[in-house]
């Protein structure tokens, strides 16, 4: 399940520290952020996305994430490639957790290292927006009185 940079396509720059992974283990945000840091950079922007208790007025007990794992990894790799084309960034790491997550636990980490912080902020924002639009992962919100698979915005559809 864990996919590391060892399995990157050969066409990718071997010096890059890019990675994308899916895991059922708790995420260590600091450790993930440190993995992307090259010496040429001056800033890493890291998004720590975690489980919110309230969505509107409804109280969530916990979340379950499920992914179409091989396609999710492919889409994550594509996003990294696109981000590198659009922003002046040095390296990107994306790790999404799957399975049952308690309130406050980290579900997704995106770390972007860049020579200058502005590009890292812009790329990180773009990456989470795109991840939520195209990467085939779904969350089920479990409440005291039921559960529901969250379905993304229709207009967010690919194609």
């Amino acid at each position: 399940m864990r996919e590391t940079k060892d399995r990157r396509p050969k066409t990718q720059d071997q010096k890059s520290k890019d990675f994308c992974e899916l895991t059922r283990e708790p995420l260590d945000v600091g450790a993930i952020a440190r993995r992307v840091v090259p010496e040429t950079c001056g800033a890493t922007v890291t998004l720590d996305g975690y489980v919110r208790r309230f969505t509107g007025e409804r109280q969530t007990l916990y979340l379950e994430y499920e992914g179409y794992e091989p396609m999710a990894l492919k889409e994550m790799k594509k996003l990294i490639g696109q981000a590198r084309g659009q922003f002046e960034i040095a390296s990107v790491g994306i790790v999404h957790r799957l399975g049952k997550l308690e309130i406050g636990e980290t579900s997704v980490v995106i770390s972007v290292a860049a020579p200058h912080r502005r590009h890292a902020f812009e790329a990180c924002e773009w990456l989470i927006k795109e991840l939520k639009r195209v990467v085939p992962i779904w969350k089920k919100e479990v409440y005291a009185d039921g559960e529901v698979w969250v379905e993304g915005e229709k207009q967010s559809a690919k194609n």
Partner: protein
Amino acid sequence: MKVQVLFFGATADAVGKREIEIDLTDETRANDAFQKIVRDYPQLEKHSLLFAVNQEYASGDEIIRNGDELAVFTHVSGG
């Protein structure tokens, strides 16, 4: 020919299975294959669906080959 169809999250719950195998005639277009799946499992109709062929979002024009992997799922909600 036989192809595998995968369901995830809401579509897996709707169909009651995570995976099925369907029989298609050769040279079936992806759109026709997906329409057949929704005809076979009309409970999918109440969802807004996305389709994939071999782990890529489908345009619908793909020609399905023996052994291909199709997937039917709702709009994504990760993050």
